[in-house]
């Protein structure tokens, strides 16, 4: 087994090479883990909603709890106007959560530890929210960049600052998820390497650290999926209820 802590983030091809012109569309381990988490989500919610018994079994309870959790999160942060977007935020939260959680299984691959995956997700959210804002408010959506009660002299400066802070949303959203996942997994691998190199005498300390870090990483995996979803709700709230 390679002791290089960055080895776990390597993307490699599974199966034959598929090329569409210049674009490489081969099936990689990243796509494999996306498919696995997608199938798991579909299975859980299919089985959970099959027979709606009054006393739920375990899978039904899981499905109902996650539904209620996301539904409450949306109504708390974005209000009742955001109800039509429930399905989008719910699938987003579930997808990121399962990708993070499957990354915690030993020898697996964490898809969200690649900046391109999180950046594409964040860009879709950013573009979608901007389009929703312009559809709902028309050109009045540009008022988002002009806070009320600012003297005329400072207005150009404030507008520039607001535009920068609006454009930095997808970057901060994607970098947060990516950096947390990658840093955590690298740290776990580094401590795992310490166990081997210190041997049976001094290896117990990094081993116990590694166990504690695993618990922390599971917390981070859940928390980052939650933060990703709740920030989407906040951006949606800005687009739907325009008040400054």
């Amino acid at each position, binding site marked *: 087994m390679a002791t290089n802590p960055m080895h776990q983030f390597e993307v490699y091809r599974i199966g034959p090479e598929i090329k569409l012109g210049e674009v490489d569309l081969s099936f990689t381990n990243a796509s494999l883990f996306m498919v696995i988490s997608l199938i798991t989500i579909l299975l859980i919610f299919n089985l959970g909603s099959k027979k709606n018994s009054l006393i739920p079994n375990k899978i039904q309870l899981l499905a109902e709890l996650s539904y209620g959790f996301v539904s409450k999160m949306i109504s708390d942060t974005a209000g009742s106007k955001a109800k039509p977007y429930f399905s989008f935020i719910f699938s987003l939260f579930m997808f990121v959560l399962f990708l993070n959680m499957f990354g915690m299984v030993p020898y697996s691959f964490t898809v969200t530890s690649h900046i391109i995956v999180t950046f594409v997700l964040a860009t879709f959210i950013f573009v979608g929210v901007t389009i929703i804002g312009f559809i709902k408010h028309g050109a009045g959506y540009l008022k988002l960049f002009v806070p009320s009660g600012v003297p005329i002299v400072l207005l150009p400066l404030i507008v520039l600052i607001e535009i*920068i802070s609006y454009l*930095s949303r997808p970057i*901060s959203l994607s970098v947060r998820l990516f950096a947390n996942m990658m840093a955590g997994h690298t740290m776990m691998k580094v401590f795992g390497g310490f166990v081997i190199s210190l041997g049976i005498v001094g290896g117990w300390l990094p081993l116990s650290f590694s166990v504690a870090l695993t618990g922390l990483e599971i917390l981070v995996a859940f928390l980052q999926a939650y933060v990703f979803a709740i920030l989407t709700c906040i951006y949606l709230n800005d687009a739907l209820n325009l008040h400054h």
Partner: protein
Amino acid sequence: MSTELVAHVVVGTIIGFILDKTFDSKPWLILIFFFLGVISGIANVFRSAKSMQK
């Protein structure tokens, strides 16, 4: 929150870089937009700290 601060600076610098390339005004716009990014990052951290206290 720390990533937010960095993201604002990065976005400001990228905007300055692109504007510099289009207007051919090499060092000036990137400098101005770098500091605008710093200001907006600090302002945003300030804002979220304020909303957290409520």
